[in-house]
Each structure stands twice: as structure tokens, then as C-alpha cells.
């Protein structure tokens, strides 16, 4: 009971901080909008053929990458929020939480829920751009998208926490951004069909959790014909990944 309240407080704190941070709200919209504009227009012609080869002939490139852009938003926000643990350590606030009479798992869980809720909010904001891209989503699809986006967020936030727990400095975080988050994004199929990659890279795309996230988003938004796997399969893999990461995060928190 007490630990649940701790989860709630840690979750609430992340939301309060998010609400105050207007800069993040703006940049969360600006980045996807920029991607959609640049890639949607300029590069569309060059890549259109590839998209058609995947079987989704009638879809424009902008709508093809739109689920990918949402995946990108979820990825960046999740990791960023999780890595605020490193900030908390640097500013000493983490000590305040670590000496509190609460189980360490509640810190990890609270942080994971907080980060993924913020990511979900950001994802929904980007989703609101859909009508401007000529993408029509049924009400049912929208309802189904919310839990899916939350599942993706929670698996990515837990992954972020696993990285952040052991990280001492912000410089280390910068390295993670370059060597983990960017490749996760590029090799997720967010911007181009994975089938257009050379086979040796497919090993990497197969172990990339975001691949399944983007695939599921795309299947839901554009129709199953554009997805590589059935929705149920994507959701299952994402759930397994989320559970493993969550356990790992709790384990690491317990040891510090």
C-alpha cells in the first residue's frame, strides 16, 4: 500500500515537471513536424518506388513514415525521461528518494510509469497531426492506438532506466544517445521499409524492439497489409521485452 503511494508520487512528480517544461512540449511537436515536412515532401519522390514495392501501393510516403515518426517520439521521450534519473543523481535528489522507506522496486516502477505516461502524451500530440496529412483514422483505431503506444513507451522507458541506473554522468548519456538510441531509430523501419535493407542488417532490425512497435503502429493505422507481422505477434514481443526490461531495472535498483 505504502509502496503504491510511492509509485504514485514518483509518477506524479514526472508529470508535474513535464507540465512545467514548455520547451519540451514545443520541441516535441517541432521535431516530428520537421521530419514529416522534410522527408514527406522532398524525399518522397525518390523513395516512392520502394514503398510501393512493400505492397502498400496506394499510400503516400508521408503516411508511410507517420507511424514511424510517432515511434520516434515515443523513443526519444521515453529515454529522455528515464535518463532524468542521471540528472536526479547529479542534483542529489536521487538520494532523497533512495533513503525513503520504500522498496526500490517502487522507484523503478514509478519512474517507468511516469516516463511512459509523458511519452504517451507526446505521442498523442503528434497523433493529432494525422488529419493534416490526409490520414483518416477511425475512432476505434484511435482507441486501440493508446494502449499500444503505452506498451511501446513502457518497454522503452524501462530500457532507458536500465541504462540510467548505472550511469554516473551526463556525458555517458550523450554516448548512449549516439550509440544506442539513434541506431534503434534508424533500424526500426520508421523511415523506410526494412525489406529494403541488406540482409546482414536484418539481424539488428530483428532484435530491435522499436521495429515491432513501428510495425504494430503501421498495421493499426494504415492497415495490416503494410505491416510485416500480425499485430498480436508485435504486441507479444513488445510485452516480453517490457517485462524483461522492467525486471532488469528493478534488479539493478535493488542492488544500488
Amino acid at each position, binding site marked *: 500500500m505504502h509502496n503504491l*503511494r*510511492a509509485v504514485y508520487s514518483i509518477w506524479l512528480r514526472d508529470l508535474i515537471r513535464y507540465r512545467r517544461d514548455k520547451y519540451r512540449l514545443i520541441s516535441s511537436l517541432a521535431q516530428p513536424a520537421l521530419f514529416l515536412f522534410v522527408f514527406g515532401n522532398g524525399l518522397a519522390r525518390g523513395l516512392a518506388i520502394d514503398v510501393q514495392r512493400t505492397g502498400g501501393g496506394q499510400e503516400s510516403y508521408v503516411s508511410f513514415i507517420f507511424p514511424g515518426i510517432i515511434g520516434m517520439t515515443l523513443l526519444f521521450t521515453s529515454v529522455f525521461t528515464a535518463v532524468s534519473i542521471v540528472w536526479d543523481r547529479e*542534483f*542529489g*535528489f536521487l538520494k532523497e528518494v533512495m*533513503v525513503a522507506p520504500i522498496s526500490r522496486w517502487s522507484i523503478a516502477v514509478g519512474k517507468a510509469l511516469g516516463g511512459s505516461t509523458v511519452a504517451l502524451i507526446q505521442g498523442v500530440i503528434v497523433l493529432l497531426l494525422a488529419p493534416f496529412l490526409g490520414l483518416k483514422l477511425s475512432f476505434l483505431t484511435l482507441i486501440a492506438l493508446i494502449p499500444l503506444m503505452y506498451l511501446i513507451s513502457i518497454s522503452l522507458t524501462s530500457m532507458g532506466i536500465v541504462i540510467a541506473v548505472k550511469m554516473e554522468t551526463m556525458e555517458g548519456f550523450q554516448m548512449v544517445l549516439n550509440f544506442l538510441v539513434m541506431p534503434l531509430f534508424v533500424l526500426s523501419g520508421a523511415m523506410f521499409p526494412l525489406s529494403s535493407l541488406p540482409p546482414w542488417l536484418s539481424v539488428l532490425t530483428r532484435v530491435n524492439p522499436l521495429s515491432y512497435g513501428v510495425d504494430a503502429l503501421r498495421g493499426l493505422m494504415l492497415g495490416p497489409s503494410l505491416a510485416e507481422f500480425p499485430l498480436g505477434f508485435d504486441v507479444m514481443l513488445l510485452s516480453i521485452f517490457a517485462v524483461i526490461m522492467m525486471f532488469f531495472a528493478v534488479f539493478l535498483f535493488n542492488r544500488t
Partner: protein
Amino acid sequence: MIEVRDIYKTYGDIEAVRGVDFTVHAGEIFGFLGPNGAGKTTTINILCTLIKPTSGSASLAGYNVVDDAEKVRSSIGIVFQDPSLDERLTAHENLEFHGMIYGVPKVDRRGRISNVLKMVELWDRRDDIVKTFSGGMKRRLEIARGLMHNPRVLFLDEPTLGLDPQTRNRIWEYIRDLRQRENITIFLTTHYMDEAENCDRIAIIDNGKIISLDTPAKLKSMVGGDVITLSTSDNKVAIEEIKKSHSIEALEQDSKIVLEVPDGEGFLAKLVHSISVSIDSISLRRPTLDDVFLKLTGRTMREETMGPLDSFKAQVRMRR
């Protein structure tokens, strides 16, 4: 209430704590006094379960700090030496968060928060973002937070460093009052003499070891009587002359001569006559804990006048 048995803590080559052993009784105000790097904060971190000792054992309220860490944490409150607030939250939100994770019931929370905020005179600023606070205000808020959940054992790591005297007095009043009402045990480290005098017992710690542990009065009685400080035109000559005519030990500290005598008043006249070089100033006082430290280690701790490192630390705090 706190039992510490032969604790060691090493960081690579650095031996931060080298065999510390003591007991703190329930309801006691127990002080740690020692120079920078003595191992005070490291000991506190071990007792509040933030770090594990390399060897040795410690228990608090009957719980082992390694094996029953969670039970230990539910018995303590702590004001850290370094800043530990969420600067993006308001003062009130920081305390609300604290109350929630420390399990202060909702009905009590509001009253407690207003009590402690009024005590540190931050009630008017309760809805301001902490980032906009001055260093001293942040410190006051941290103290308010540490006192808010009425812990059984309260750790205060240099709680009032950089605060003005009025604020320090008010905080001490609150702490003494709290102890009387709730019978809490207080463990503190400090660099201020008057604060150390508030303690029931004091452990003097140097280089990771406790070199003496007793009541302030007993500690001071180790210094043989009164302390005379004088400066002369040639301290070396003066020290020689004092040794020859009175056969007592005199030390030079910060270009001043320091000596201890059983009966200060009676000795002053004799002293003045025995020195041939001119005397610039002379003073007599009761011994302080600093004198005790000097006696035990041959070095000063520099608490009353802040040493360069301390004022630097205070500045660092203020800036954050």
C-alpha cells in the same frame, strides 16, 4: 539506538573510515566533530543505508543497516550535506512529495508542512519554484523537509552551514523542542562550536578514526584548565622563554602562541614578566572543543572562524 561496530569503508586506495566503533543512546544528541575528509559523511551514509561498509557492522533501532535496510530507512530522517531538492518543483511540492514517500498520512501532511515551513520562514514562498530560492532558503527548506516526518533518528550533516545566526537559533529551538516531545535521537556533524555544545556527547573524528568520545564538558576538561593566546614580536624567542621559566608546553598556531594553564587569571602576570620580547596582544579564555582537537592531534580544526575550504563549500552551496 545506533550501534556501530568496527566499520571500515575504502574507496580504492582511499580509506575513508578506518575502524569506527560507537553507540548512540535513544533520545541523545550525538555529535561528530572533525576536519574535512575525516569520514563523517561516509559514516552517515553507511548508517542511512546509502552505501555498504567494506567491513564491520552497524544497526539502528535494532535493525542491521545492510540486511534490514528498508526497516532502517523507515526509522530515520536525514538532512544531507549536499543539496538534494527538486529545483523544478515548488517548496510545497517538495514537502508534499517527501510526505508521500515517507508515508505521512494525508490528514497530518497539511499541518506538518505548514508547521515546518513557518519554522524556517518560507511559508510565504511555499508556491514558488525552488530554483528561484537563495542558497540559504534552499538549505532551510531541506531542514524543514528532514524534520517533517518526525523520524526516530534524525541525521543532520552540517545542517546549518552557511545560515545566519538567527536562523540557526530558530532551527535549534525546533530541534530541541522536537526531541522533548517525540524523544527523537539526533546524530549530527558540524563545524560550528556552539552547535557542538548542544550535543550530549561528541565523538572527535580524524582520518577515519574516532580519537575521543565524551560529553563536551569532559572533553574540555582534557585541556588542562584555561587557554591563553598571545602574539609577540618574536614568537620563537617567547616560546623558549615560557618553556624555561614555567616549564610548560607552548604551541605556535597561526602566528599566535597558545598555552594551557590550570589557573589562567593568576598566571597572566607571571607570564608577562617572563617574556622579554614585546607583547602585541594577549587573551585568556575557557577551553573550546577546538582546543581539545588541537591537544589531541596537534592541528587546529578551524571551526569558529571558517577555514578556506568551508567558506568555499558554503559558497558552492549558495550557488546551486
